């Protein structure tokens, strides 16, 4: 049975945490400002612990099972990250403290900036953006600022491949750009003819995910970048799929002008059930001055005796501030820890094994699922979750049935250019045994789809809840526990 809601467990008069009585004289409250009631639940600490512990037990998580979610990079989140981020010297520093009191933090941020620059092949870096989409917005704003600074005001067009993640067009629209979709060719690359037609003097930039959401490295990536640059545009890299490229190629080397990193994907910081993430943005030399303020820099050079004095610098043509303070520092500590434990060769091993795992899994299942693009994949691949001879079965049904085999489903219905898409990304964390077991489940389900489809249609059977009535949820909006509608 389900876990009751807080308002159902609440008992008037209970309190989990109490505080000492005031040790100062009581001041008088301002006339007319006290709230009359606060309709919040009242629980003991044990109630709270039991409630949330039981809720947690209804969750699937990396710690309990494999997530083959394409473009999410659900790799293992090392526990050491949770330790280092909690060292009091990190966790209990206030963002507005004088810089002399937080040289440890600033040194860490500076070093992380340098490491990410090295990994991506960039000349400048900001750690401020809160997530990938936030990094995308930062990057697109930088692109527009760059063109404006050169009085190149006609450029309002952003090109986005049809395989792109939804955040790409959403970001472009948020920044006031005109979005034009570019189709992919039959091998999953950006269609060069379609691209050439759009390369004109209204082109601000191209947002490119490489490898793309099909898990394919663009076979013409150099030509794509050359075409955009020749037309005066800039190339934005969506770094969501960087796990395939660590130590394999540096996007900056091949011509990307600006790129966001997803620390909560490539660099192992935990997803937390929906964040927090962190989306640092790297830029080429000509865009360094436009980075959001502040960036961490060296205020006073060090020497043999003294380390440098680190502080904050506002780039001369900065687009401004993307959020309060200077980034998700707790998340940065985790990424720093992770990179420290790998070094250059270690990062390359990540990419090699992520790509090996994906190709191995693909080899196991491609006899049972249609693969639209016959190419070596990178760290992920997309197959169709449908068969012509089992027309009532959709990707959704396969996904729900996988839950009965104790696996989280792959990404569904994305990218949009593959019908009934199932996007699978194993990551390097998963062992051969896990790949074998997952492939076996998928093949069994393919067989069930043809001979016993009801098993799929009525799945999942073993999860705490079955398929949910999403229509009811949207039409009869219940977004709060009953008690919240009481007085203000």
């Amino acid at each position, binding site marked *: 049975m389900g876990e009751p809601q807080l308002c159902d467990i609440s008992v008037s008069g209970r309190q989990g945490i109490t505080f000492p009585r005031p040790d100062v004289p009581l001041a008088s409250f301002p006339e007319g400002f006290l709230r009359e009631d606060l309709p919040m639940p009242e629980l003991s600490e044990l109630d709270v612990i039991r409630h949330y512990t039981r809720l947690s037990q209804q969750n699937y998580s990396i710690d309990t099972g494999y997530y083959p979610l394409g473009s999410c990079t659900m790799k293992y989140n090392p526990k050491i990250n949770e330790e280092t981020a909690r060292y009091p010297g990190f966790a209990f520093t206030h963002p507005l403290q004088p810089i002399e009191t937080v040289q440890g933090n600033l040194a860490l941020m500076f070093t992380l900036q340098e490491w990410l620059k090295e990994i991506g092949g960039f000349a400048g870096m900001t750690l401020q953006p809160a997530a990938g*989409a936030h990094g995308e917005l930062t990057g697109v704003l930088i692109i527009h600022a760059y063109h404006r600074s050169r009085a190149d005001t006609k450029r309002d067009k952003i090109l986005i491949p049809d395989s792109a993640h939804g955040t790409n067009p959403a970001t472009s629209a948020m920044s006031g750009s005109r979005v034009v979709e570019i189709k992919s060719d039959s091998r999953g690359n950006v269609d060069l003819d379609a691209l050439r037609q759009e390369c004109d003097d209204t082109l601000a930039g191209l947002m490119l995910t490489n490898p793309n959401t099909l898990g394919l490295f663009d076979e013409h990536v150099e030509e794509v970048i050359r075409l955009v640059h020749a037309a005066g545009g800039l190339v934005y890299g969506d770094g969501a799929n960087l796990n395939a490229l660590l130590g394999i190629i540096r996007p900056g080397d091949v011509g990307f002008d600006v790129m966001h990193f997803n620390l909560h994907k490539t660099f192992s910081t935990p997803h937390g059930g929906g964040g927090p993430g962190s989306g640092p943005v790297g830029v080429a030399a000509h865009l360094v001055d436009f980075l959001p303020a502040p960036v961490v820099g060296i205020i006073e050079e060090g020497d043999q005796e003294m380390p440098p004095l680190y502080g904050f610098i506002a780039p001369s043509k900065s687009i401004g501030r993307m959020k309060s303070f200077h980034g998700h520092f707790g998340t940065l500590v985790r990424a720093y820890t992770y990179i420290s434990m790998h*070094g250059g060769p270690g990062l390359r091993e990540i990419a090699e094994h992520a790509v090996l795992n994906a190709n191995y899994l693909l080899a196991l299942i491609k006899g049972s699922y249609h693969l639209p693009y016959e190419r070596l994949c990178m760290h992920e691949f997309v197959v169709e979750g449908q068969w012509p001879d089992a027309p009532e079965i959709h990707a959704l049904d396969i996904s729900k049935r996988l839950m009965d085999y104790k696996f989280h489903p792959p990404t569904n219905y994305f990218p949009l250019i593959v019908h009934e898409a199932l996007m699978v990304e194993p990551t390097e964390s998963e062992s051969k045994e896990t*790949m074998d077991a997952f492939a076996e489940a998928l093949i069994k389900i393919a067989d069930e789809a043809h001979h016993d489809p009801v098993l799929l249609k009525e799945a999942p059977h073993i999860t705490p809840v079955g398929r949910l009535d999403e229509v009811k949820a949207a039409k009869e909006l219940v977004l709060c526990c009953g008690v919240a509608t009481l007085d203000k």
Partner: protein
Amino acid sequence: MFIPHTDADRAAMLHAVGIEKLDDLFIDVPAKYRFPTLNLPPALSEMEVSRELQDISLANESVHDLVCFLGAGVYNHYIPAAVDAIIRRGEFLTAYTPYQPELAQGTLQAIFEYQSNLAALTGMEVCNASHYDGATAVAEAVNMAYANFRGKRSKIILSPAVHPQYRQTVRTYTEGSPVVLVGDDPQGDVNADPDILIPLIDIDTALVVVQYPDFFGRIYDYTKIAIAAHAVGALLAVSVNPIALGLLKSPGYMNADIVTGEGQPLGIPLSYGGPYLGLFATRKEYVRKMAGRLTGETVDNRGQKAYVLTLTAREQHIRREKATSNICTNQGLMALASTVYMSLLGKNGLRQVAELCFHKAHYAAQAITNLQGYSIWSSTPFFNEFVIQTPIPVSEINDLLLDHDILGGYDLSQDYHALSRHMLMAVTEMNTRQEIDQLVVVLSEVSNG
């Protein structure tokens, strides 16, 4: 390192794929750029990295080493042990976004309860599952208001008493757009009553944005501004410190249309700037205009009550360039921390914390007023932050305080040129009477020479 593959695994897998060596996986990567050597330090073991990070952390002084009177948007509040115990659970920490609800009822119910708690606290009807922080929440409120009027109204009135970093963020987000930002002219009188914004409200106004308590700690009733805004069909957004709402009337009571805020005070560590928690709540009639995730209650095919992400058609993965916002990953774990915090404290605990902050801040303010050379800048009621006028520049006072292991308040001259010798002082339940007394003693050293 974390890769489980043995040589035997690799050999078997390469064989299955039909290639000879790992390098062959990367034939599509241009040879010219392939396999760069990354200039990074050699890999450390867990034992070594733990030592190194400890050393780096010890090169800082934290609010455990220094007595903290610094606020300005984020505060040193007590975080109950149970909060971290819950958010460290792997089932919450390492779970993905709950797109497959059958496998994520824990996360979904926790978000639902977070939405409920925030709605109650803010006096609003619906609340989303989080934005990045207080600053971006205001920027999203601006976007929401602009979209609400379909571009027919482009004026946004920003009170100068809204956090400077929030206003900077709004300016970054609206750069190049038709939105016109008024009200926070640097030459304006920052001590004036917020009612001076009222004459700026007209039929071109989409949104008025104020803060509660404001950046200077002051408490105002914004009901009059709400009335003035609604008279011309404009919206009112109020950015809050949620701890204050444990004691004070909510913005919902004042008829705000949108409530945003920084949720860090609700059980989230200072952590040198983040990750924090953007609060966002609104009225039911605007629920579709609101960005961010929403969890709703429904039933499953076995008739059980269950939870699911709803109204997802607004979001980027469906709406793409027509989405209300591009937000995807938000601050899920921080929202969980805050709802555990709110559950542990409950209505009475939240009131107690707020009262402690209030009384201690007023004790400090009273003592400082009595010092020669210092005065309280505003006579308006305040919650737990207040502005003092200082006899010498704030930076010098803070240097002196630091010598006594005290972290002084925020130097307002950085953001308000009329406030050249003004410090924003914050006091929380973590400050003891002795600490406040010691602060006052050190401050008095200045006026005494």
